[in-house]
């Protein structure tokens, strides 16, 4: 509370941070901005816990022999790294933190449609996280974040149930957030804010919310069946009881592949805000970018079988899933081309958010293109379940989503805190993260093609050099993530006051003071034109 007090001393204006004080005013808040901050704090915690496990994994893999951790501990660590990062950081990250904070501001609303439900979502997140924390503290879980049966139901003796309950609960947090956003976007837009005047971040959150509402219940069902089989030996997945283990994989990926798009679509939305702002230029092909979000959300539901190419699925099913997986690549490619074209003839200023956005475009391109390798049946057989897959999805999830998240946090930090972050440190951290990331994960593509399987505690000697490079990169990446943590906290007290619109950006969120007042706008704004209406000359040929 000292930081909020400091703000008061300098700025007597009432805003969402200083309109009330005390733990109670935060824990019982229904203000979407405060809920967003509650998520920011919880997710930062989750990120560093998940990161700790990653550090331990990379240290173990420094040498071929399994020497730092015991095999059992290693298996638990990669499981908990995956569970925490996927379910407690990546899935909620941009929607729950940035979406919560800026969505109502962006559409000129006073809050989300169901403010109390919004707070309930955060409590469900905390409850789910508590179960998972309990599982971690009481011995951990070793099934991998994918919980494949029958290992998870019949073989593992670790804390599968509390972890599964945690994931079951946090799923409802995700469903409710999605529901809240869909209703908010339909019902709460300011006068004049038609669908095609919406910022693209809103479009991407809309696509994300649809997936959250439609796919997450399947995860809940799957986790529940897993629990029933583990506790009561209902024969659903275990062949010894008459079940089918591959059925679990179908159900799991029916959620978890769309979940990949839950994790990347909001990131794409951030990039669509940041690039026009710092190129001071209208986004190239607005409608194509908007509809590609919806196309990704829809096609994303039809490709789950590409996780099962060597799992014993029929050859013909595999052929259909491979084809559909290629179709989902196209809208992603369209977005990348449009962002690149937006830079053309702009007037580009290299502020920290843009550096993250450019990093995103490069890394997401590599992540997306290597996805084409995995969608190709003949190639997937060799590289699936190897480090190639690990590298691929970290390029999407970390190179893509975490870069976008960092870019978004920096972009909206002045609005959130009312303060500027230190630009020099911001650029330096972005650069360190980009270099550290590539050094960590690029060697893993080669390791994967060489044949190093994933989830290996010990490995043959010839893979060592590439693993050492990867661990070295991870240590650079770790420094890169710690820096913003430090200077953003520092800026809360010492940062320059930001003013309403430090980026001269379009968008309603920049028309209200920073930090915004409790009800966001003094007067409900009226929208009369397109988003991204940056000043500029019209092209000569019209």
């Amino acid at each position, binding site marked *: 509370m000292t930081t909020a007090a400091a703000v008061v001393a300098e700025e007597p204006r009432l805003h969402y941070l200083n309109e009330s004080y005390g733990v109670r005013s935060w824990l019982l808040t229904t203000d979407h901005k405060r809920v967003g901050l509650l998520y920011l704090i919880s997710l930062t915690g989750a990120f560093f816990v998940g990161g700790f496990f990653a550090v331990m994994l990379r240290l173990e893999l420094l040498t071929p022999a399994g020497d730092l951790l015991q095999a059992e501990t290693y298996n638990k660590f990669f499981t908990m790294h995956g569970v925490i990062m996927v379910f407690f950081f990546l899935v909620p990250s941009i929607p729950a933190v940035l979406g919560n904070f800026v969505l109502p501001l962006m559409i000129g609303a006073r809050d989300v449609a169901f403010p109390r439900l919004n707070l309930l979502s955060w409590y469900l997140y905390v409850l789910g996280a508590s179960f998972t924390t309990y599982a971690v503290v009481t011995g951990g879980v070793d099934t991998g974040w994918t919980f494949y049966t029958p290992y998870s139901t019949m073989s593992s003796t670790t804390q599968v149930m509390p972890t599964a309950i945690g994931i079951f609960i946090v799923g409802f947090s995700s469903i409710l957030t999605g529901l809240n956003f869909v209703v908010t976007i339909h019902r709460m837009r300011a006068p004049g804010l038609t669908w095609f005047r919406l910022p693209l971040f809103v479009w991407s959150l809309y696509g994300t919310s649809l997936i959250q509402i439609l796919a997450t219940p399947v995860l809940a069902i799957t986790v529940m069946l897993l629990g029933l089989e583990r506790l009561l030996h209902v024969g659903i997945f275990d062949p010894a009881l008459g079940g089918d283990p591959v059925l679990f994989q179908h159900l799991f990926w029916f959620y978890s592949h769309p979940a990949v798009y839950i994790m990347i679509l909001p990131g794409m939305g951030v990039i669509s805000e940041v690039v026009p702002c710092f190129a001071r230029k209208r986004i190239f092909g607005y409608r194509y970018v908007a509809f590609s979000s919806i196309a990704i959300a829809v096609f994303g539901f039809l490709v789950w079988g590409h996780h099962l190419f060597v799992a014993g699925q029929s050859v013909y099913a595999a052929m259909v899933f491979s084809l559909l997986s290629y179709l989902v690549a196209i809208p992603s490619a369209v977005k990348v081309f449009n962002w690149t074209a937006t830079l053309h003839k702009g007037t580009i200023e290299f502020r920290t958010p843009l550096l993250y956005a450019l990093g995103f475009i490069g890394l997401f391109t590599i992540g997306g293109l290597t996805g084409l390798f995995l969608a190709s049946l*003949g190639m997937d057989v060799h590289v699936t379940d190897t480090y190639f897959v690990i590298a691929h999805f970290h390029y999407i999830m970390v190179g893509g989503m975490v870069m976008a998240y960092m870019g978004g946090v920096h972009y909206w930090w002045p609005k959130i805190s009312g303060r500027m972050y230190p630009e020099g440190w911001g650029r330096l951290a972005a650069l360190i993260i980009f270099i550290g990331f590539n050094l960590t994960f690029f060697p893993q593509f080669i390791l994967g093609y060489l044949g190093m399987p994933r989830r290996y505690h010990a490995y043959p000697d010839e893979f060592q050099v590439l693993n050492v490079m990867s661990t070295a990169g991870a240590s650079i990446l770790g420094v890169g993530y710690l820096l913003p943590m430090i200077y953003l906290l520092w800026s809360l007290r010492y940062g320059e006051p930001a003013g309403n619109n430090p980026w001269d950006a379009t968008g309603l969120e920049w028309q209200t003071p920073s930090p915004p007042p409790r009800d966001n706008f003094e007067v409900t704004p009226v929208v009369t034109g397109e988003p991204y209406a940056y000043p500029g000359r019209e092209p000569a040929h019209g």
Partner: protein
Amino acid sequence: MIEARFSLPLFPEQASTLAPRVDALLFFLLAVSTVFTLLIAGCIVVFAIRYRRRPGNEVAEQVHGSDRLEIAWSVIPLLLCLVMYAWGAQLYFAAATPPPDALEVYSVAKQWMWKFQHLSGPREINELHVPVGLPVKVLMTSQDVIHSLFVPAFRVKQDVLPGRYTQLWFQATRPGTYHLFCAEYCGTLHSGMIGQVIAMEPADFQRWLAGGTAASPAVAGERLFTELGCVTCHRPDAQARCPDLAGLFGRTVTLTTGQTLTADEGYIRESILTPGAKIVAGYENIMPTYQGLVSEEGVLELIAYVKSLQATEAKAP
């Protein structure tokens, strides 16, 4: 611990007929990816320099977009994707269809070891000897959780499931010793569930086979067939209450439901463990289950025996 020798392999060995075909697809994918990465990275770098904010470039040119460009950068990647799809699918189809004359090896996986049984006799653990130049088919099942047989030098991988059979095949091209990994996480010692594939010249392989003293699985299967009492009902004479098994393997069978199927390994396994699931037309559901009475290896031996019956009966008029 300081390693004395520095080794940094960047490309895996090619030791099967499939390997160069997979690598050719890899090079195509790499070429396309490199072109697109350079294209996008190049555009970003050029635009970033050329259109940076500086005196003289303080206002952007406000373009809306271009339908022609949008169509171009949707259709061209789509066409390239279709090539990748067709190429990959064709390779996958070939890898899924073993040649009919392939040598057969049975494998039972369990936490955390690979057991192999050559149809001609020898059993091995965590080692698989195969001849160079001949197709080898591995028929696999698991005794517990899901495993996955992965031989990087051959570019083959297939999950091994409890409760059913899966298979993979390869034809080694170069004698040598190659890694064999379990690629599906299967518990504590997953990373220890590794072994070697030893590819040998056919003459050396024959010598290796002859060195073993083990009875062939078909002989072991015949013994089991008698011990378990199967022979009481499954017999060629007129009093048989169950179908005669000679010549059964690979034949089309008509069921009481009117459906037909080909009698393969999976069908025989099911008929031993859940006999009531598919009843042959003209017979009654009287066979008891042998679930729990016969191990996965035993089932494979029985299958080998049934297959061998086909060989002898085929010669009879």
